[in-house]
Structure formats: C-alpha cells, structure tokens
C-alpha cells in the first residue's frame, strides 16, 4: 500500500492548498464546416461542437467525482473563426452567436477561437472578424477572442497593432455598463501557441488533429506551502522544491487528461503546466514570490524571483507528462491574483514592473485595468512593446488590458468569478506615441544569431 504521508500530502494539497485541474479543453477543428452560405456554415459549426463536445461536461464531472480532484473549467477551443469568415463572408457575429448557443447547450464555461492570425498580414476574413470583435463580445457571454499580431519568424504587424488598440477601446465602450467585461475576454498575442487550453487566448490551430483533449493544471497554493516549509533554504533548494511540486501537480493533469481522452474516445493533446492564480486566498502567484523573501510582489527582485519560479515549474513538469505544450509557466494576471491586487492597490506593483516581469513569465500583461481616458494609440503602444519582448525572446507574450470607461486611477472594476477584480492602474499619458503607431507597416523579424 501507499505511504501514509504521501496520501495525506495529496489530500492536503486538494483540501487546503487549492490544488485543482484548472481546465479540460477540447480542441475542435471547424475547417470542414466552412460553407459559402454563412447560415449553413453556422449550423454546421453548432452541430459539430455539440456532436463532439456534447458529453464533455458530464464525462469530466464524473472524473472529478471518482478521482476526487476538482476540475474547475470545461472548455472548447475552435479553429480561428476568421478562416470560416474567409469562405462564407457575411457578418462574423453570427458565428459568435452560433458558438454561444453551442456553449449554452453543452454547458461549457467558455469557447475560445473567435480569432484571427495576422502576424504577417491580413487575408480574407481577418479584418472583418477583427472589426466585429467588440460587438461579438458585447452580444455573447462565454466566447473569447484573440488576435495574433506578431511572431519571431515574421515580425510584428503594426497595422494590426494599431487596429487592436482601437478594438480594445471600442470593446470596453460597448460593455461599459457591464464593468467593461468585453476586453477581459480579448487577448492580443505574439507567438500564440496553437494548443493552449487557457482562455482568453485558446484556439485550435490548423496543425492540430480534428479533435483533441488538452489539460491545464494549476496550484500556486501548493508551491507556496512547499516553499514555506523551507524558510532558510538557498535558491538551489527552493528550485528543487518547486520542481518536485510541479512534477506532482503535472502528474495529476496527465492522469485526468488520459482518463478523459479514453472515455471520450478523443486523442490526448498536451498538459499545459501553468501556475494559474485565482482571486481566492492561498491561490496566488504573487504570494509565492513573497514567500521567497520579497516583502511585496512588485519590488526590485520580483523579476528574478519570477524567472526562477517559471523555469523550475517547467523543469519539474516536463518529466511528468508525455507531452507538454500550451503556455506552460507562471501566469501573472493582476485582477485574478489576490497578492497582485493588493500590491497594485498599494502602488507597489506598477505597469512598468509588470512589463519587465512578462519577459520572464509565461504570458504577458494580463488582466490589467487602465484609466478610461487611455487613448487607443497608447493601448497599441503597450501591445507593440509587449509583442517586441515576445518576438525577440522567442516566447509567447500577450496583452489583455481593460480600459475602465469613466473610471480613474484608484477606482476598481469587479468582473466576478475567476476574472476577479482590479484597481485602475496608473499609466503615464503625458506624452503620446501616436506618430509611432500611425506609421503602420511591419516590424521585420529579428536576427536569430549574434545574440547578445
């Protein structure tokens, strides 16, 4: 029989340290649903999703019950809808509504893939889809949109960067009576992964199989508790502890993924071994950094601590899974992390520091609330900076910022649920990047040699 201590360690991780499987996401290709008649195309999209993922929620809930492991979200990601718009033409919002109907009928939390990939330029359907994003997000509740505007191999599409600044702003305007929730479901990516199970950036890449199951794990609380037990250890020891903990968390994800894949008869894709915080107490990435010895997240030293954490999580998780993918690393979404909310409220955590942190974490500027007066060119400039970090460092970066319409620094937005709440953060608006953003064109892809 198993060791008593091991058993209670697992029970304690789940009971007290918020260990959970954050999401089981089914990726579904919609390429075979494309039709030159948009209504027909929407019907096929709805039918394919309901047909493939109809049993997803029930199956995953059964696994949750039998294995005693909480599985928080059940989601679906689909082929970027811009590809269907390219064939059908018409109003892309019809697709968003078809996806929403499917989400309602199968009971998933989110469907991701209202997306376009425009890192080198716009093709048919891309502009139409991007321009429809604010309406699509305002008229649906469970659909997530993403746009990939840059990559290491192709550079940054600055026309798309300019457009996305406007789209983020418009999306906030359209949902201003609902806590500006629109842009909380919209992410602008550079080097977007095709197999990411986490929202809002999830979509089903064209290189993926027809249908596939991905799992995203979580467990910042478990890592924090493990480090707490070693208050005087040096970084070698801390890294070992994080690796060991990440290994255990990932094994759980691998198990759930295997079982779900077998029961649904759908191939298993990847485990995304991320530390994804929630607003709940004891489920915070900021608290891990503070446990390492920083008085508060956001002070000098935060970037180094995060770099170490991110790397150790990957090293520990890689051996635990047959296939690792997605974003994999530590997330730093401000409004979804109790420690970061506190640090942002107190002014310790600034947007400048967050930008530095994104150079070493797994994603980017995430769930950051900006003053409502922030002009679209400033949002575009934030996107360009972030994309540049991703492009040069060959990593995924993303921007999910929420301009809080009619609100000022110090006010707060409440999204509820896993999206949490966040204070409007201070941002320097005295000087404008408008002339830079208005240039348009493409920033060429960076050198991959002569690295210094």
């Amino acid at each position, binding site marked *: 029989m198993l060791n008593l201590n091991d058993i209670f360690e697992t029970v304690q991780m789940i009971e007290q340290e918020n260990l959970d499987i954050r999401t089981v996401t089914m990726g579904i290709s919609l390429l075979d649903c494309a039709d030159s008649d948009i209504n027909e195309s929407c019907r096929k999209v709805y039918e394919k999703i309901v047909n493939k993922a109809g049993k997803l929620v029930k199956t995953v809930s059964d696994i949750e019950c039998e294995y005693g492991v909480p599985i928080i979200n059940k989601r679906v990601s689909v082929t970027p809808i811009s590809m269907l718009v390219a064939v059908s033409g018409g109003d892309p919002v019809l697709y968003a509504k078809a996806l929403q109907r499917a989400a309602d009928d199968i009971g998933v939390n989110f469907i991701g893939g209202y997306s376009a990939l425009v890192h080198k330029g716009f093709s048919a359907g891309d502009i139409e889809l991007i321009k429809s994003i604010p309406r699509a997000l305002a008229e649906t509740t469970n659909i997530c949109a993403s746009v990939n505007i840059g990559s290491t191999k192709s550079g940054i599409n600055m026309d798309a960067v300019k457009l996305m600044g406007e789209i983020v702003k418009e999306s906030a305007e359209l949902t201003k009576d609902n806590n500006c929730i629109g842009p909380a479901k919209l992410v602008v990516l550079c080097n977007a992964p095709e197999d990411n199970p986490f929202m809002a950036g999830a979509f089903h890449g064209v290189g993926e199989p027809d249908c596939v199951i991905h799992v995203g794990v979580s467990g910042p609380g478990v890592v924090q508790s493990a480090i707490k037990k070693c208050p005087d250890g040096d970084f070698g020891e801390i890294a070992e502890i994080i690796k060991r903990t990440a290994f255990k968390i990932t094994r759980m994800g691998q*198990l759930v993924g295997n079982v779900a894949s077998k029961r649904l008869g759908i191939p298993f894709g990847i485990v995304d071994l991320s530390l994804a915080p929630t607003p709940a107490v004891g489920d915070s990435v900021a608290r891990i950094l503070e446990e390492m010895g920083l008085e508060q997240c956001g002070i000098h030293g935060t970037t180094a601590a995060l770099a170490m954490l991110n790397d150790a999580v990957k090293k520990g998780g890689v051996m635990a899974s047959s296939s690792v993918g997605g974003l994999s690393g530590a997330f730093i979404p401000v409004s979804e992390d109790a420690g970061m909310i506190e640090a942002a409220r107190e002014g310790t955590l600034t947007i400048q520091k967050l930008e530095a942190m994104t150079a070493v974490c797994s994603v980017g500027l995430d769930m950051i609330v900006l003053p409502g007066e922030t002009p679209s060119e400033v949002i575009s400039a934030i996107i360009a900076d972030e994309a540049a970090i991703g492009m040069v460092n060959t990593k995924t970066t993303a921007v999910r910022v929420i301009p809080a319409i009619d609100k000022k620094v110090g006010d707060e937005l409440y999204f509820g649920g896993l999206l949490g709440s966040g204070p409007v953060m201070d941002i320097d608006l005295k000087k404008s990047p408008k002339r830079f953003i208005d240039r348009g064109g493409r920033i060429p892809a960076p050198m991959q040699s002569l690295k210094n």
Partner: protein
Amino acid sequence: MRTIITVIGKDAVGITAKVSAVCANRNANIVDITQSVLQDVFVMVMLTEIQDLNCSFKEFKEDFCRLSQETGLDMRVMHEDVFDSMHRI
C-alpha cells in the same frame, strides 16, 4: 477499481466500525487499513475494491459525506490512481 478512503479528526470510539459498516452495506471490499492516533488526532487510510458496489459511486461517496457530517471527521474518497500517479514514477 480501487479507492482510497481517508479519515482525519478527533479520536473517538467506533470510527473504524462506522466506516467499515458503510463499506459492508455498499458491498465494498476492504483490502487494507492503516490507522494511527497522533496527539489525539485519528488518521486512517483504507484501501477498498469497489467494482461490485450495490449502488453508484456517487451514492457511495455521499454516504461518506453524511458520515463525515455526523461524526465531524474529515473523510475523502478518491481513486487509487491519483496517489499512484502523483507519488510513483
């Protein structure tokens, strides 16, 4: 399928008997039990075979939920594979 039932809480008379009674009622075969009392805290781990349950797994779990509320002890029923995959390579 085998599950691991864990029980933690204040020591009292008859805990093992009550847990075993639920297993017997539901036709779950107890394969192994480890228990000890550490500073007044009772901890028990029970490995059971449940392929011949006379009810659904959900009902079996609910029985323990009820017993947990009655006794004030913390009880969990989890698939053996969770522990295996986490602690064995």
